């Protein structure tokens, strides 16, 4: 009896000791297919790290951005790992809000991260966030409609070709629009597309002295081209369309072309949801012969806030979720087509991935075509392609996005939208002390 009691006590004591040792980390993330898949595969992580428990907080993108900003600015310590984008990383790293990721393990192979993505997530040569999936933008088009229009899509089209093809493919009587582009207002919505497009037209947000440039002919050319193209060949109500609305239109066969993130390729080529799954072709984002393409660069990445008390466990998790082994794990459970794209060079050299994802090469080429350090034709004082990595950009980008969305909806002229954008940008930059 005494022996039983002793064994029981020892068992209880060891259980308590284990419970006391177990560490739980909280991960804030967005709701998208790759992130949800990761949550379902975390048994692999907890099996390898039995002392670490994972708690997930999944939020809508804007709420997540607001909450993690509040938490990190106040050192609230609610999260140990945060999902953030390439916009936040350089700004937050400079504020010392993020821990450098210098303990990801010997077999992590940071050199394998695609250089353009690693560059966007590093400050002074140090990696402050590990990419979970990376993306650029490219053209998805209907091969059957292109053929019907008597055209052949080149691998690297020009804006002139896109305009011609869009107008020829448009058949409004049958509900087909030549091109579907983002029109919904927001710095990460229409302004992601329009800023990237403007780079290929030689435009820039600011000159070397931070003076706003919306009064220059390059911006006028960009916005004129966009509005005319959408009026001639875009869907009705395009000023309300973002990624999801255009995805639905393309899947229903109502778009001849769609320029957006490569993550869409797996949706439009999936016969379960898409009526045009077997008719989709891919091409690089268009250019204007000026040496810059109209594609962006983005990576949802995992970062560790400086306020966390559990940095060691957090680094272990970040290392697991962004490792080559994780890509193999997803491939073994869900197939190569479902592996998070755009982070590691080795993935694009993998023949199995190349076979499962026909858009793989175009995705890598698109990412490599973006240069966050030299995003525009003329020199600029900022980095990054489809946004300007300064804290003021979120508010200013959305204001300008609202003006350009109004121009698309016909509520104001292109000239008025550009004039008001110039005024808003001048006011913001003056207030921020960038210009006098």
């Amino acid at each position: 009896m005494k022996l039983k009691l002793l064994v029981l006590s020892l068992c209880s004591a060891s259980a308590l000791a284990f419970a006391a040792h177990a560490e739980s980390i909280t991960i804030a993330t967005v709701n998208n297919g790759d992130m949800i898949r990761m949550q379902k595969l975390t048994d692999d992580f907890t099996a390898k790290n039995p002392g670490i428990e994972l708690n997930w907080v999944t939020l809508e993108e804007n709420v997540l951005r607001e909450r993690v900003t509040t938490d990190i600015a106040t050192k609230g310590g609610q999260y140990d790992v945060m999902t953030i984008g390439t916009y936040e990383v350089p700004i937050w790293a400079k504020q010392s809000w993020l821990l450098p990721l210098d303990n990801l393990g010997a077999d992590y192979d940071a050199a394998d991260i695609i250089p353009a993505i690693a560059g966007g997530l590093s400050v002074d040569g140090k990696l402050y966030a590990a990419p979970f999936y990376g993306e650029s933008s490219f053209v998805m088009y209907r091969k059957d409609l292109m053929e019907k229009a008597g055209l052949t899509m080149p691998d690297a089209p020009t804006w002139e070709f896109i305009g011609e093809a869009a107008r020829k493919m448009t058949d409004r009587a049958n509900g087909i629009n030549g091109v579907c582009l983002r029109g919904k207002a927001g710095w990460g919505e229409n302004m992601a597309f329009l800023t990237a497009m403007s780079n290929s037209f030689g435009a820039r947000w600011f000159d070397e002295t931070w003076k706003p440039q919306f009064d220059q002919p390059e911006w006028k050319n960009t916005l004129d081209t966009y509005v005319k193209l959408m009026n001639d060949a875009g869907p009705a109500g395009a000023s309300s369309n973002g990624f999801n609305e255009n995805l639905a239109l393309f899947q229903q066969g109502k778009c001849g072309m769609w320029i957006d993130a490569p993550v869409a390729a797996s949706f439009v080529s999936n016969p379960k949801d898409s009526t045009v799954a077997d008719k989709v072709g891919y091409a690089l984002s268009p250019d204007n012969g000026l040496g810059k393409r109209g594609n962006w660069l983005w990576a949802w990445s995992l970062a560790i806030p400086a306020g966390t008390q559990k940095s060691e466990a957090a680094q272990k998790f970040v290392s697991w979720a962004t490792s080559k082994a994780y890509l193999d794990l997803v491939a073994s459970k869900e197939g190569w087509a479902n592996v998070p794209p755009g982070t590691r060079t080795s993935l694009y050299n993998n023949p199995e991935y190349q076979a499962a994802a026909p858009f793989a090469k175009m995705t890598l080429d698109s990412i490599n075509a973006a240069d966050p350090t030299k995003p525009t034709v003329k020199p600029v004082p900022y980095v990054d392609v489809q946004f300007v990595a300064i804290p003021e950009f979120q508010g200013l980008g959305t204001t300008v996005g609202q003006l350009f969305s109004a121009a698309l909806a016909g509520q104001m002229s292109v000239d008025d939208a550009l004039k008001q954008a110039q005024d808003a940008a001048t006011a913001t930059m003056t207030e921020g002390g960038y210009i006098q």
Partner: protein
Amino acid sequence: MARAVTTQHKTIATAVAWVVALLIFFPILYTIITSFKSETEAIAGFNLIPSFTTESYAEVQSQYNYFKPFMNSVILSLGSTILALLIAVPAAWSMAFSPTRRTKDILMWMLSTKMMPAVAVLFPMYLIFRNLGLLDSRIGLTVMLTMINLPIVVWMLYTYFREIPGEILEASRMDGASLWGEIWYVLTPMAVPGIASTMLLNIILAWNEAFWTIRLTATNAAPLTAFISSFSSPQGLFWAKLSAASTLAIAPILIMGWFSQKQLVRGLTFGAVK
């Protein structure tokens, strides 16, 4: 003499009431309908006839555990309601039966706090919660919800208590009732319809509160509002899943409201007609 109401008037009034009720209920109805559509159907445009698929419910269940946020919603809404009533009943009693020159001002001041946008105090509140170690705790959020709804609770109870003749309370005092005896044994039973409707309304308000419950929680205290918000996706169709999650979140409070509607209406119209 009361004016005669014709059958025609009654029919028109009934029809108008039905139209208004349908208009008010329509967003909820459409959410329920959308929850039984496929994602492609949900984003395709206005359509009242779904394909009656339950795949979104299955997806919602497979992604998240419904029970934990549901229990948090129950605890937060009931906890904050009980706490608010414990504070508001004596406060409303004192304002209704022993008013001073400043009573009206205090009532107006309390109401004015509801006019302030919540986001204006987000950072101070966040810092207070952080410093007190109350972030992501049920206790902190219960106190927060109590404070948010307290002005409405006090106002409603004050209005009900004003309808109760003061002579009855005076009589109980003459019979030797103590202060708490007067509130507990005399006032409270007489104001049961008012207290019940206030309680029900407060539960509904606390259940639906989304600003603070999303921003001050992470995993431990997150209620159903946080559960809903987790289904919005930046890249990928989500309307059907979001609608299924919303339907699951509003179902308990909708059922509670359905069963207690008589009490709710009786309380809300208490004292409206003399």
